[in-house]
């Protein structure tokens, strides 16, 4: 328990946020939390599995669309639509995993990208279902236990609760024997086979689990915005998630959280001054990969350790 106190402190600090900030910041914090869950799910694949994915927006987007469509077309309330959307998206993740894991490394990346692009293009063109470029609007937030989540702080606490559970479960996963095996396949896949591990199966299960949490972030996303548009399925969205993981530091639990905050804050503040967000995003990619490839969290950890050993 002793090394977990920073997390507890963080949780308490985050919980107290609405008491000291205005609505704008509370909403921004909600967005950061949602993005953090999304980035963390990507990290399961990239950081712990060694599988770089450029198509994770698929799970966010599909879960969001499923929830929206179940509500708009079949009148199912968000609360009941949630498990259906999650199951549907997770099954899709299983199928996508079967295809994508036919290759590793670059091939795997291309396949995840290709599958994601299929969904993205379909969302634009299948106008009868998705209303194409108009997106689906007028959606409602769920009312768990009858609580109204329309107010900023109420929704924030809801998101914080779900986000905390998500990160905690991912942490358990990573610290388990399965997680240790997964990390082994990231570092020495051949050796792991020779030790008796079914590398493909380990990866596939992780893929599904990562897809599940991506779907969870998708639900939070659509609840927050009350709107979904094909752009949420875009390569740019997947790339931003990937950037958050890399900027913060893949292979650590805190990395994606820090990275998500950085990317979200950048987006929010800088895009007010800089019209070309895409160009800036591009520059950030290049700068981070070339100058800070390990990301913020490992860099800071290193400095902290050096500081500790000196005092």
């Amino acid at each position, binding site marked *: 328990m002793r090394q977990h106190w920073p997390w507890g402190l963080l949780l308490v600090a985050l919980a107290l946020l609405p008491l000291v900030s205005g609505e704008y910041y509370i909403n921004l914090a909600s967005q950061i939390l949602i993005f953090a869950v999304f980035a963390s799910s990507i990290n399961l694949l990239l950081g712990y599995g060694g599988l770089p994915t450029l198509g994770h927006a698929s799970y966010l987007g599909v879960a969001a669309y499923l929830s929206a469509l179940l509500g708009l077309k079949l009148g199912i309330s968000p609360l009941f639509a949630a498990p259906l959307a999650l199951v549907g998206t997770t099954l899709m993740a299983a199928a996508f995993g079967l295809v994508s894991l036919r290759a590793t490394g670059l091939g795997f990346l291309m396949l995840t990208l290709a599958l994601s692009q*299929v969904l*993205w293009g379909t969302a634009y063109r299948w106008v009868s279902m998705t209303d194409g470029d108009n997106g689906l609007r007028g959606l409602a937030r769920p009312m768990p236990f009858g609580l109204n989540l329309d107010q900023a702080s109420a929704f924030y606490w809801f998101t914080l609760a779900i986000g905390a559970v998500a990160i905690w479960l991912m942490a358990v996963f990573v610290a388990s024997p399965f997680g240790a095996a997964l990390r082994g396949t990231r570092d020495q896949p051949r050796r792991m086979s020779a030790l008796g591990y079914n590398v493909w199966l380990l990866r596939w299960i992780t893929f599904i689990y990562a897809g599940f949490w991506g779907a969870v972030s998708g639900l939070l996303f659509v609840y927050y915005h009350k709107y979904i548009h094909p752009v949420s399925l875009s390569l740019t969205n997947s790339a931003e998630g990937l950037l958050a993981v890399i900027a913060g530091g893949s292979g650590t639990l805190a990395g994606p959280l820090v990275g998500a905050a950085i990317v979200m804050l950048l987006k929010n503040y800088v895009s007010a001054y800089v019209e070309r967000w895409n160009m800036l995003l591009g520059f950030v990619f290049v700068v981070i990969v070339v100058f800070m490839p390990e990301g913020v969290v490992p860099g800071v950890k290193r400095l902290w350790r050096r500081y500790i050993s000196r005092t």
Partner: protein
Amino acid sequence: MRIANLTHGALYMLGAYIGVSVMRTLPNLWLAALLSGLTVAVFGGLVERLILRRLGGNVLGQVLVTLGIAFILADFCLVVWGGDPIPVPTPAFLQQPVRIAGLAFPAYRLAVVVIAVIVGIVLFVFIEKTRLGAMIRAGVDDRDMARAVGIPVSLLFTTVFCLGAALAGAGGVIGGPIMSAYPGLDADMLPLALIVVILGGVGSLIGAFVGSFITGFVYTFGVALLPDLAYVILFLPMILVIAFRPRGLFGKFAA
């Protein structure tokens, strides 16, 4: 060359836009294509030397960096040339349809097919049959050994990269009369290029050729029959082929 490069679509688009600008002063498509190709080649060379060189075998790094550059280029084109599509005029002597066996074919598109075949053959001969091509292949297979035998691997790699960029840039201009130059051209071209390479198999020119044909045919007919599912049809051949043969149709190794 085993470099993961997602910039190619953007290079194509950049080429198209540069061609458009050139043609405003020199209304000759072929000259524009040449100048475009050269300019994009230089840009490509700079990218390879200054950025990609530092990333070595870091595949994820290459992907992210080239993706970033693609984003930058896309926005750059938007700023410089604006958001409206700019048409590229077809050369005058190719504007009339050609009659073959009683059917009318658009002359320009036929010309593009001919050009593509010629370029394909030239590339194939270059890579497979010339000494220079052999040196390049040696450098890709075993970099250190090739260097040890005196092959200037770095120089060759940069040259090949520039060649690829040049073809993309020139291609953008040559494709101009058919596709115009518009924001999002890169996003439309890149998946096509990736599909063709993965479907055909990494490292195989024949694969790229066959891949293009298959993709082209399936896509054109598919879009005519099921327009709503255009994107699915576009990616379907690649997904099916990879599912059964991870190295693509003619690939030497799984991507």
